[in-house]
């Protein structure tokens, strides 16, 4: 290793020591600098070893490029929060619409039918409000489409990255919180709503209970 390249590596390593938050990019950069600095040494080795080192260098370069394409900061700071906001808005608007519709239904049920004219007016007024409230479906549909688009965007980036680095799924939970959540779901049989046709029907349930 030449004195100049030795100094480059030392400078890169010193730079890392001074940083509080070392990213994967930083480590890969140091590894790349180390490999470049060893070029003179590598040149003296036989071609097979040289080829292997070159493959490692290419792999590191490719991984760096794929990490760049992943745009993790963009996903974390923009796309995921925006999708969360869209879903919150869907929950709010569906709840508001449901409340309006129920208020109308309650008002109709409580109206006095003996006064035919007043009763008809109440029914007509409340029906108009119900029609208006149902317009939430169009807006929530558009919001959910945006969320689906975001999920597809994330899926394509993550898939490309996983394929590039040959990632394999780990059996271990991502965090302690995740592990607790999974255990609670398993212990308390929290499956959530089933997809259309996947759960048992009310008739099947009745048969299970009476069987």
């Amino acid at each position, binding site marked *: 290793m030449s004195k100049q390249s030795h100094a480059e590596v030392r400078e890169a390593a010193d730079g890392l020591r001074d940083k509080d938050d070392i990213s994967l990019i930083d480590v890969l950069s140091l590894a790349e600098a180390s490999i470049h600095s060893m070029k003179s040494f590598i040149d003296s080795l036989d071609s097979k070893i040289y080829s292997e080192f070159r493959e490692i260098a290419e792999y590191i370069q490719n991984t760096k490029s794929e990490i760049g394409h992943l745009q993790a900061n963009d996903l974390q700071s923009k796309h995921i929060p925006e999708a969360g906001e869209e879903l919150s808005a869907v929950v709010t608007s569906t*709840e508001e619409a*449901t*409340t309006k519709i*129920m208020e109308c*239904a*309650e008002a109709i*049920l409580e109206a006095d039918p003996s006064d035919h004219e007043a009763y008809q007016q109440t029914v007509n007024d409340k029906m108009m409000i119900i029609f208006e409230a149902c317009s939430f479906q169009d807006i929530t549909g558009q919001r959910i489409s945006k969320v689906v688009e975001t999920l597809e965007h994330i899926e394509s980036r993550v898939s490309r990255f996983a394929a590039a680095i040959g990632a394999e799924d780990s059996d271990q939970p991502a965090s302690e919180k995740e592990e607790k959540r999974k255990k609670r779901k398993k212990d*308390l*049989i*929290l*499956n*959530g*709503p*089933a997809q259309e046709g996947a*759960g*048992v*029907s*009310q008739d*099947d*349930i009745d048969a*299970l*209970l009476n069987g």
Partner: protein
Amino acid sequence: MAVDLSIPVLVVDDYKTMIRIIRNLLKQLGFSDVDDAADGTEALGKMKQKRYGLVISDWNMEPMTGYELLKEVRTDDGLARTPFIMVTAESKTENVIAAKKAGVNNYIVKPFNAATLKSKIDAVFGE
């Protein structure tokens, strides 16, 4: 045996909208004394203060689920005989079997209609 419409009913669900829907359906069926709770813990507290003739509970709630509430109720000598109907979106066979084993009286899968609620209440009271 006719259903006694004056019995106190406790509706347990963490969604206010669902509580409102079930309250309205019960009102239409003629029940007049209906209370509600947002999860199993709150429901258990209310059940120890007032004797309910029927509990209608969701399954998936925090911190105490409807499944845990059912098991607590069935192991409490003072509450064990309270009729308990599970109204839930949990529609896997394992949920139904677990609820049956824990002593549920009936099980309604969401979404449901007024006729289903009425028929299950009638069945619980032997009509």
